[in-house]
């Protein structure tokens, strides 16, 4: 009995320390922690005075500051063509899984709506098992709307999925060999496709980039895809928070995909775009899907050796105008 009393008293003391710590931490240290390690949430907390929040990855900003005269982000350029104020919540390689946690933090009735990039490539096995995934999982854990100290502890105790590079690679290869494609052999899986075409086996730059395009875009999005579920949740969140939701399908380098692989690949990309529109576009429920997939030409993509969604000034302006047009159309 004596031991129970002693332990009970100490557990009580520990609880008091934890409560005091939580209060002090939230009051004095949490914001500076976010500024350093959870910048998007830090920014979001300071952005609720805008009309729209713009959730995006690196496609928002320029990677060609030497040639661009105007290096503004897509989100900033959008404001040139509409009357709404738009603030960017963008981080490199971020995807819908991270965005949905951030969106949960938006207080009800503070902003009009959100614009979320629909990056088709972010559904690919390469992105799902990319080198940034561990870090993004950490952000996802940190951004969950838990009490601040719990959120902090999930980060410091690494309570999120962490996979080694080897595990990620194995998972990626499993996707390539098992995800079915709607074609006959050898194009029925990514692995069969590249294993059975001679052009992928040579070691020149064309073969390398062709392979990258194949691995980045040859897949079919369906209802069970984890990213689809993330977007489903974003739609539900927007509805519950009374937010207008604009999903804009990011332009992909279709010219290059067609040149390197052919119509069998571009058809897959288009089908995935069509899936997004069919599933989410519903103006009566205040959800709009903007189709920008084929609006930017090859010359306006800044990367030449890897498929990305990095656009030059002209490319970003095309996207900004398209989004602004939709914003202007929303009553």
């Amino acid at each position, binding site marked *: 009995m004596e031991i129970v009393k*002693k*332990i009970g008293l100490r557990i009580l003391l520990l609880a008091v320390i934890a409560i005091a710590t939580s209060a*002090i*931490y939230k009051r004095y*240290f949490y914001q500076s922690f976010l500024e350093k390690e959870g910048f998007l949430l830090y920014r979001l907390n300071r952005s609720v005075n805008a009309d729209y929040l713009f959730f995006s990855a690196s496609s928002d900003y320029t990677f060609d500051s030497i040639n661009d005269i105007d290096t503004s982000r897509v989100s900033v350029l959008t404001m040139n063509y509409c009357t709404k104020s738009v603030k960017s919540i963008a981080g490199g390689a971020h995807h819908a899984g991270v965005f949905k946690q951030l969106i949960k933090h938006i207080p009800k009735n503070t902003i009009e709506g959100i614009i979320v990039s629909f990056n088709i490539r972010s559904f690919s096995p390469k992105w799902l098992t990319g080198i940034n995934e561990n870090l993004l999982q950490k952000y996802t854990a*940190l951004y969950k709307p838990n009490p601040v100290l719990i959120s902090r502890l999930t980060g410091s105790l690494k*309570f999120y999925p962490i996979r080694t590079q080897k595990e990620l690679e194995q998972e990626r290869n499993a996707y390539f060999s098992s995800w079915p494609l709607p074609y006959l052999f050898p194009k029925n899986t990514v692995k069969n496709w590249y294993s059975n075409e001679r052009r992928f086996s040579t070691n020149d730059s064309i073969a390398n980039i062709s392979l990258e395009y194949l691995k980045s875009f040859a897949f079919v999005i369906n209802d069970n895809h984890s990213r689809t579920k993330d977007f489903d949740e974003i739609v539900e969140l927007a509805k519950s928070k009374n937010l207008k939701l604009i999903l804009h399908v990011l332009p992909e380098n279709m010219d290059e995909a067609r040149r390197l692989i052919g119509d069998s690949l571009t058809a897959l990309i288009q089908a995935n775009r069509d899936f997004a529109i069919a599933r989410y576009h519903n103006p009566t429920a205040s959800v709009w899907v903007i189709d920008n997939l084929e609006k930017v030409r090859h010359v306006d993509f800044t990367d030449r050796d890897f498929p990305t969604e990095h656009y030059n000034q002209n490319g970003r302006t095309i996207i900004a105008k398209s989004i602004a047009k939709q914003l202007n159309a929303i009553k």
Partner: protein
Amino acid sequence: MLFNSVEFLVFFPIVIALYYAIQYKWRWLLLLAASYIFYGSWKVEFLSLIALSTLVDFYVGKQLYENTDPKKRWKYLLLSLGLNLGLLIFFKYGSFLANLALPIAPIPEWRKNQIVSFLAFDLPVGISFYTFQTMGYTIDIFKNKIKPEKHLGKFALYVSYFPQLVAGPIERFKHLQPQLLANNKLTYRNLCHGARLMLYGFFIKMVIADNIAPLVDAVFESPLEYSLITRWTGILGFGWQIYADFYGYSLIAIGAARCMGVELITNFKTPYFAKSIQDFWRRWHISLSTWFRDYIFVPLGGSNVNKVIWIRNILVVFILSGLWHGANYTFIIWGAIHGLFYLIERSIKVPNRSFLKPIHWLKTYLIVSFAWLFFRAEDISNAMEVLFGADSMYSNKYLDLPFELVFGFIIFIMLELLFKSDSVNSVLNRTPFAVRWSGYGVIIFFILSFAGTTNHPFIYFQF
């Protein structure tokens, strides 16, 4: 399952509760099951290795005890050493040795690639620790110092006891086994003392080591971008990172065992207060240094030999202890630096006056820190880059020391000074309740608020 993980924070209280709740005669089974769950959480396949090592050493231990024929006994001992060292060499040094041998091997290129990819597997966690522990067991039976364990399950528990399984302390059978099988009673004292050690361990691992780690990584990843002072900050930082990391782990391990009434051996005694290399090794990773002393240095002749042999023995022990950490020239250099300075210190008689103590301390600290440079570096050229830098106008980046690390480090040093001459629990037992709990409050506040969030598992897990 890392100690600083949610999984362990759930797993451990359950094990403790069950340990004291079930009948004494079943405790070994509970601990064995818990240990295998703990170890299997990394990779279930790794369990087969520890099981193999356990089975062979159990059998060898029995045979060594029952056989009196010296030839047979040697054969059995060699079987144990061969298996454990074989596992170690295959898993830890296989890839390194293959890379040395393959360039000159008369086999086709495709076969070489096959061998390289075959050897590119994950290193089983803690393999260096449990193989050394079981080798110590069979050697002790061979030397008639101990009697073997008759019960396979209870022996398996000695090999796999989860608090010290993956990173030590490397325990001797004579010390650990009777405690594991004792009818330990639930006492407030054991729980309290264990919890204190674990709390302090979490503090220095999560607040000190995990916050230093990103700074050290930055310097070693791109040393040419940093100035001389910053690079040395990185080198000195690594010395504290590895100490806080390993000492923190050891404290959690010792604390966890203490909660079950088991006292593991002390692995660290404020090593950075050492005043010579010899003194450093009496304070740093004590369970490994005493293992090398008892099972390598003494059988080689120890100190009772002529000077040349003695020098050879010292260098062998230090270089082997370097190699124990991994298959890389950097570890050999690390061990050799310690060995050389040990020999130099022993050869030069310096008066042991009290006013010279700070100089001895500083000299030792700088030698140890210099050796850490090689321990941390990816390879020798990386070590050279960190040491010499680029001497260019672009080498001007600096490290931004976060305030939580600075304050946490000050607390750590103050506590180190406090625990320098006595154990953590002895000091805390003498401290008034209010002061003690204020201290706990500060430590808990730091752990909850300022623990590092980058992914840095315990450094010694890779060994």
